[in-house]
């Protein structure tokens, strides 16, 4: 149905935008091992995005690429956190830590969806995101407890990303129409907090307080970063309408 398609689009957009961000690290990472690791995570996310966008497009006869390359910014449904710039490595790790923990809870629950396709995607994704979670936890510990400089940067990274945490857990009206199919993000917050608490404790961190962005990604409202990300991502495809690659 159109509602399920819309929901698949939400999740697909999250993965694709985050994968696009992570893809920029490849060949620029702090060490070769991280070129590989961030590349792996990006590849997993592209995989999820392709499955979800493919599924989202079936309702309207659009391909995954129609959705990825031919939608303008207000038609994107991704959360604002995934479009936040890479910043330094600490920003990227903070974003990845937050999103991976969110997605893990989400996909774990979505495995029970009454929609068989979503359940299958979720089953595969939950396992992969569990690894992403682990990767970011290791780095949060290393950076927080490594040197003074790395700790300072990790704190800034979390404080710059935290304003976008709230939006992840907001329920949109669409969810009322998808009982049993979708997962209510509000219902994930407790598990999320429970999962990150021991990491923050070990890393001697506290959840940042301060700004809370008003969000709205699910309704096509984005921070000023998404437009530039799309300009880059879509430029070649749009220069050749109708071409195959």
């Amino acid at each position: 149905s159109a509602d399920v398609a819309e929901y698949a689009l939400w999740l697909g957009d999250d993965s694709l935008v985050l994968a696009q961000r992570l893809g920029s690290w490849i060949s620029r990472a702090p060490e070769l091992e991280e070129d590989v690791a961030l590349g792996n995570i990006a590849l997993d996310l592209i995989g999820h995005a392709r499955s979800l966008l493919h599924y989202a497009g079936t309702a309207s006869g659009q391909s995954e690429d129609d959705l990825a390359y031919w939608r303008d910014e207000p038609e994107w449904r991704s959360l604002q956190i995934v479009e936040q710039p890479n910043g330094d490595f600490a920003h990227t790790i903070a974003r990845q830590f937050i999103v991976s923990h969110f997605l893990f809870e989400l996909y774990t629950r979505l495995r029970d969806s009454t929609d068989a396709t979503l359940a299958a995607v979720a089953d595969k994704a939950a396992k992969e995101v569990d690894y992403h979670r682990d990767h970011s936890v290791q780095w949060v510990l290393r950076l927080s407890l490594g040197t003074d400089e790395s700790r300072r940067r990790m704190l800034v990274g979390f404080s710059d990303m935290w304003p976008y945490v709230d939006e992840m857990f907001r329920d949109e009206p669409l969810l009322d129409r998808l009982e049993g199919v979708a997962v209510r993000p509000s219902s994930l917050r407790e598990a999320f907090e429970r999962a990150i608490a021991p990491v923050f404790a070990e890393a001697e961190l506290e959840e940042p307080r301060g700004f809370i962005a008003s969000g709205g990604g699910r309704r096509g409202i984005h921070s000023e970063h998404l437009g530039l990300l799309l300009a880059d991502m879509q430029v070649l495809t749009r220069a050749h309408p109708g071409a195959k690659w």
Partner: protein
Amino acid sequence: SADEQQFNDLIEADSRIEPRDWMPEDYRKSLVRQISQHAHSEIIGMQPESNWITRAPSLKRKAILMAKVQDEAGHGLYLYSAAQTLGATRDGMTEALIAGKARYSSIFNYPTPTWADMGSVGWLVDGAAICNQVPLCRASYGPYGRAMVRICKEESFHQRQGFEILLELMQGTEAQRHMAQDSVNRWYWPALMMFGPPDDDSPNSAQSMAWKIKRFSNDELRQRFVGMLVPQAAVLGITLPDPDLKWNDETQKYDLGEIDWTEFHEVLSGRGASNAQRLQRRRDAHAEGAWVREAAAAYARKQSERSEMVAS
């Protein structure tokens, strides 16, 4: 000496030399030079392709390209490991690269202005690399030979992907076909140069062949490569930009047009299109990542201190 005799016997018998075996100092040096240069080429070689990761024109191509560039990082890691078994240190090799003292394959000093270059790099550059590398799977030094087995398997996959990119373009719109042909025009000659100078002008080759580090001459490999390209170009419907290229029944080889070795030497001596950009980018990534590596090292130190404390 007995060591030397044993080494020569192993080489003679096409056996592997392993890290703990005795080896002549020149053999070791020659291998370190070749392996680290190869590793550096993988690392620098990520750049021309990473240039298109964010702009890849379909999600499928984006995934394939990401995986490919990531494979190259992986190849760099295997090769650094192989060089480390010969006493080279990773920091030392990295510093040499960044300081501009270590070589890497000159081919990566060409830019990738269009998407079609993702095809040409795969088809021509990886293709030439495979011709160079397949014989290295039998290289006398064990860790190098084994790394090459794994690398060659992946490279041949990359070459096929490059071919597919070009095929898709050649079956596409006129703009796409033009993009593909233009790209092949730019990459064909530099790819031929990847096999190095003609045999009569190649100083290091003889010793390397005697040691079975290298197993075919530059010109032999170049011939093998062109022999592979010609039928594939026909399938693609693409023209190889050498009007003099033709099969010679007498010599049973391809006649090739004159290679512009001046360009080769210009690029080699730092006057190519992208030498400066490639090193700058590697230096910047390394410098910007310093605090991360330091943090990881400090954390590992603290952890091991803690576990020692717990243990004692």
